[in-house]
C-alpha cells in the first residue's frame, strides 16, 4: 500500500516535469528555437517512427550493441573462469588486464578506426571491449565466492575438472556474472552510440549528430527520448531474465540491487 503510493508519487514527479517542459516551451519561458514543446517532440518521434527511418537506425545500433555484448561477454566469462581456476593464466594476463582496464574506451576509437575501419567491425569491437572488463571482474569475483565444499563434493564423486567448472563453478558464479552483465549492458548502449557519433555513417549516434548540424531540435530530443526509453526497457528486460535464471539466488534471500 505505502510502496504503491511511493511508486505513484515518483511517477507523478515525472509527469509534472514533462508538464513543466510543455508549459515552459508553449508559454515561451525558455525563449529558444531549440526548446520545442514535449508534445511536438513526441509528434516528431511518431512521424520518424512511421517512416521507418528511426526503427532502421535503432535496429542497426541495437544489433551492433548485441554483437559486442555477446563477444565481449563470452570472452569475459571464459577468461574470468580461466583466471580464477588456472593460476598460470592469471599470472600471464593479470598485468595486461590491469594496464588496459583504466583506458577510457572512447579513446581507443581513433586507433581502432585505423585498423578496423569505420563500420560494424570497429563498433562491435569497441562495445566488446567495454563489456569485457566488468564481466571479467565479476566472473573472477563469482568464482572466488563458490563454496569450497561444493567443489570438494564434485571431487568426491569423481567428477572431472571441466565438468566441475561447467556444472558447479559456472552456475554458482552466475549471480555475479549477471551483475557484471547488467553494468555492461548500460555501458554498451552508451558506447555504441558514442562510437557512431565519432566515426562512420551508421545508427542512432550518427543520426543525432546530423540532426544537430541541421538544427532540427525536435528530432534531437525525439532521439534522446527514444534512447532513454530503450535503455530503460533493456534494463527491465534484463532484470526479468535475471529473476528467472537465478531464481534460487533470490529465494536464498540474496539481494539484487535492482
Amino acid at each position, binding site marked *: 500500500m505505502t510502496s504503491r503510493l511511493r511508486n505513484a508519487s515518483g511517477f507523478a514527479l515525472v509527469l509534472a516535469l514533462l508538464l513543466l517542459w510543455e508549459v515552459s516551451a508553449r508559454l515561451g519561458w525558455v525563449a529558444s528555437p531549440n526548446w520545442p514543446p514535449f508534445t511536438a517532440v513526441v509528434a516528431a518521434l511518431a512521424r520518424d517512427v512511421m517512416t521507418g527511418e528511426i526503427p532502421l537506425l535503432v535496429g542497426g545500433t541495437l544489433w551492433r550493441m548485441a554483437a559486442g555484448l555477446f563477444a565481449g561477454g563470452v570472452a569475459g566469462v571464459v577468461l574470468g573462469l580461466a583466471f580464477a581456476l588456472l593460476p598460470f593464466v592469471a599470472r600471464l594476463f593479470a598485468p595486461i588486464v590491469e594496464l588496459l582496464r583504466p583506458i577510457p574506451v572512447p579513446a581507443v576509437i581513433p586507433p581502432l578506426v585505423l585498423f578496423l575501419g569505420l563500420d560494424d567491425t570497429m563498433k562491435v569491437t569497441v562495445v566488446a571491449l567495454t563489456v569485457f572488463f566488468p564481466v571479467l571482474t565479476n566472473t573472477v569475483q563469482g568464482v572466488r565466492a563458490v*563454496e569450497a565444499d561444493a567443489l570438494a*563434493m564434485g571431487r568426491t*564423486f*569423481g567428477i572431472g575438472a571441466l565438468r566441475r567448472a561447467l556444472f558447479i563453478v559456472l552456475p554458482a558464479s552466475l549471480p555475479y556474472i549477471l551483475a557484471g552483465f547488467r553494468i555492461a549492458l548500460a555501458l554498451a548502449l552508451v558506447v555504441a552510440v558514442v562510437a557512431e557519433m565519432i566515426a562512420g555513417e551508421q545508427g542512432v549516434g550518427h543520426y543525432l549528430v546530423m540532426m544537430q548540424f541541421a538544427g532540427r531540435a525536435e528530432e534531437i530530443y525525439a532521439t534522446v527520448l527514444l534512447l532513454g526509453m530503450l535503455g530503460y526497457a533493456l534494463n527491465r528486460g534484463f532484470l526479468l531474465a535475471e529473476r528467472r535464471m537465478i531464481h534460487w539466488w533470490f529465494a536464498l534471500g540474496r539481494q539484487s540491487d535492482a
Partner: protein
Amino acid sequence: MSFLSLDAINKSFAGVPVMRDATLAVREGEFMAVLGPSGCGKSTLLQIAAGLLPPSAGTVRIAGRAITAPPPEAVYVFQQYTRSLLPWRSVRDNVAFATEHRLGKRRARAIAEETLAQVGLSGFGDHFPWQLSGGMQQRVAIARALAAEPAILLLDEPFSAVDALTRLDLHALFLDIWSRRKLTVMLVTHDVEEAIYLADRIALLTYRPSSISEIFEVGLPRPRDPITTRALPQFLELRQTLLQKLLARPDA
C-alpha cells in the same frame, strides 16, 4: 583385514602441525567412529582419508592400494549440507549429480528417485533443497552419497546440524541402510552418545597435534534401539569412560 587404513598421517597448515602420526585401520563392513573435541582435526583426518586433502606425511590405503586422489570406492559426506547441495538444482538433480557423469542423465535420475525413496523423500524430487527442512536436506545429501553406491562412506558429523529428534530419526535410517548395503563407515563426531549408539568401534582423537590415542570396542548387540540401547549398563559405562577421557585432556 583392514579395508581403509590410515598410516602415520601427519598434517601441518602453514607449518603448524595439527596432526601427528594418526594411525587407524577400518575393517570391511565395519562402522568406525572417530571421537574428538571440536577443532581437534576430525574433518582434516576424514578429508585426508577421502583423498580430498593431501597429508604432509603418511599413507592412506584403500583395499591395500595407496591413494592420492579421491578414490572411486569412497564418498565423503560434508559437515554442512547447505554448502554442498547445489541450490540451482532440484532435489532429484542434486542426487543425480553423483552419477550422471558416469551413467547419463536418464539412468542417474532413475537411481535418484530410488535412493530418495530409501531416505523417505519420495515425492520431493521436484523441490529445491532450500524448500526443505534441515533434516530433509541432510537426507538429500545422504541419498546423493548412496546413489554413487560407494563401498566406504566417510561421514563428517552429518547429524550435528539438525535438532535432537531429527538426529535420532537419521540415526535409525542410517543404521538400516548401513546394515542392508554392508557399507564400511568412518564417522567423525564430537557426540559421545552418537558414537556409542552407532559404531562397532570408537577411536579417540587427542587434541592438537592430534593422533589416535585409544580404540574402544563398543560390543552392544544389534539391532540397536534408540531408547533401550541407551539404557543398557554397558552403554552407560562406556559413555562415562569416554566422557572422562574427553574432559581430562590437558588444556592447550
